[in-house]
């Protein structure tokens, strides 16, 4: 069965026990993203502190993949510099679009490497990226906001 390739234990764990879930104040910017084919949605807030991602909080509904990948996201970016966080975004996005042709770098993506199997199912790539897109959008807004 190929299913295990997609639904790695790490993913199911994050799904059942998501990290950082819930919307928190204060925040600098918020992004709402939706997957138009399935109606999955996420609202995600970013708080910056100097050049650092101080908090990421979120709420939403969606499948195991979208929920788990947002949970992994918070682990990866909170406490990092914004530049580091965006580099992780790039690495995760590259992995998801690679259809399994890219070997993920565990040093960069940590638990995120579990999504390599998802990348082989193009219909689920959008799920895995939903929270990440919200992060990218909110982070850009927050950076603009705090640089004013």
């Amino acid at each position, binding site marked *: 069965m*190929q299913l295990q390739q997609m*639904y790695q234990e790490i993913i199911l764990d994050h799904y059942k026990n998501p990290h950082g879930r819930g919307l928190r104040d204060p925040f600098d910017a918020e992004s709402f993203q939706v997957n138009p084919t*399935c*109606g999955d*949605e996420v609202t995600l807030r970013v708080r910056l502190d100097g050049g650092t991602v101080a908090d990421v909080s979120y709420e939403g509904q969606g499948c195991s*993949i979208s929920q788990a990948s947002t949970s992994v996201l918070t682990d990866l970016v909170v406490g990092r510099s914004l530049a580091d966080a965006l580099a992780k975004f790039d690495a995760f996005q590259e992995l998801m679009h690679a259809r399994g042709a890219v070997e993920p770098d565990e040093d960069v993506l940590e638990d995120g490497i579990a999504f390599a199997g998802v990348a082989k199912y193009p219909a689920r790539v959008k*799920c895995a990226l939903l929270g990440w897109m919200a992060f990218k959008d909110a982070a850009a807004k927050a950076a603009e906001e705090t640089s004013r």
Partner: protein
Amino acid sequence: MTAVTAPLDVDALRADFPILSRTVRDGKRLVYLDSGATSQRPNQVLDAERAFLATHNAAVHRGAHQLAEEATDAYESARARIAAFVGTSADELVFTKNATEGINLVAYAMGNAATAGPEAARFVLGPGDEIVVTEMEHHANLVPWQQVAQRTGATLRWFAVTDEGRLDLSDVDSLVTPRTKVLAFTHQSNVLGTVNPVAALVAKAREVGALTVLDACQSVPHSPVDFAALGVDFAVFSSHKMLGPYGLGVLYGRRELLAALPPFLTGGSMIETVEMARSTFAPPPQRFEAGTPMTSQAVGLGAAVDYLSALGMDRVAAHEHALTVAALDGLAEIPGVRVVGPADGVDRGGAVSFVVDGIHPHDVGQVLDDQGVAVRVGHHCAWPLHRRLGVPASARASFYVYNDLADVEAFLAGVRETKRFFGVA
């Protein structure tokens, strides 16, 4: 659905569908339960389209050469047979690219009526006019009406849906009034399977002088449908959902309405005379078929309706009814599974949508896919309906002539396996 009708010989007809003999996901038998989205095509349809292209192809309604004659004959013969299949005649049948275009055609043509002269006055929409739809519409029969309302100042209103997934007709008299210009509704819901009471709604619309627009995308492929008998003013359906090619939809319009309706798409083949500053337009159906038509696709759909007619639409409906009831009964026995839509087979077609407690429909679909069972997941282009029923999305199994009870069994086994895989009791 008379008892004397012999059942479909599914084993025999499956051989007509080449795709059904392939396997998916490492050798699993393909159990295709996504015909509500698009059907598979039998060799008869593929052959007809290819034979046309390899032997008779030319631009229709034009050139005086032999191929052009043959192509025109093939195209118009298909139109006549497709028309007969839905109880009407060729001059009431317009080819579009899909059902969505057909609904847009009616909405846009009504929007154009304001600048199209006195003949079109009855179609004009403006402030104070109302368009009534339902909460169970496919986006194709909702968004075009939102848009024309926004452009013209008309108001959009809608029938609610009950918890059981039926139309709530309790406020019909306050909803459908002399202000109502259009009543647009689906014959059969692509999510719930619900078959709506067309006769009652048409009677009400006639009482107030409203035009009826029937979305027949999910009825025409699955049961005998006669637009003239139903008494609707306009109706649409799609070739690809009924064994025919992609890229072809059908709009039915009552003769006198099509004759008065202003054009929508304009260009070649739909004109009467053209000068630089102004044009006049051909009679229907040509008036609504601008540009080179979907010639070979019409030929393909002609072959599809021949195929379906040979099976017999009564038998098709009876066959799908049996599968639907088996699926509903089977799902009812699995704890934590909730069917979205009527729980029994009464006034209900073969779309079986459901949710599994604790498992997102996307994940349900993935586990089913892993077992070779292809269902659709998401809101099925009926987002407001899902919101109304309190689910973000659902998984949907839908049946067609080539499905059998073994497919239903595989589906039910897949749902049980999904629960096991995710450890949901």
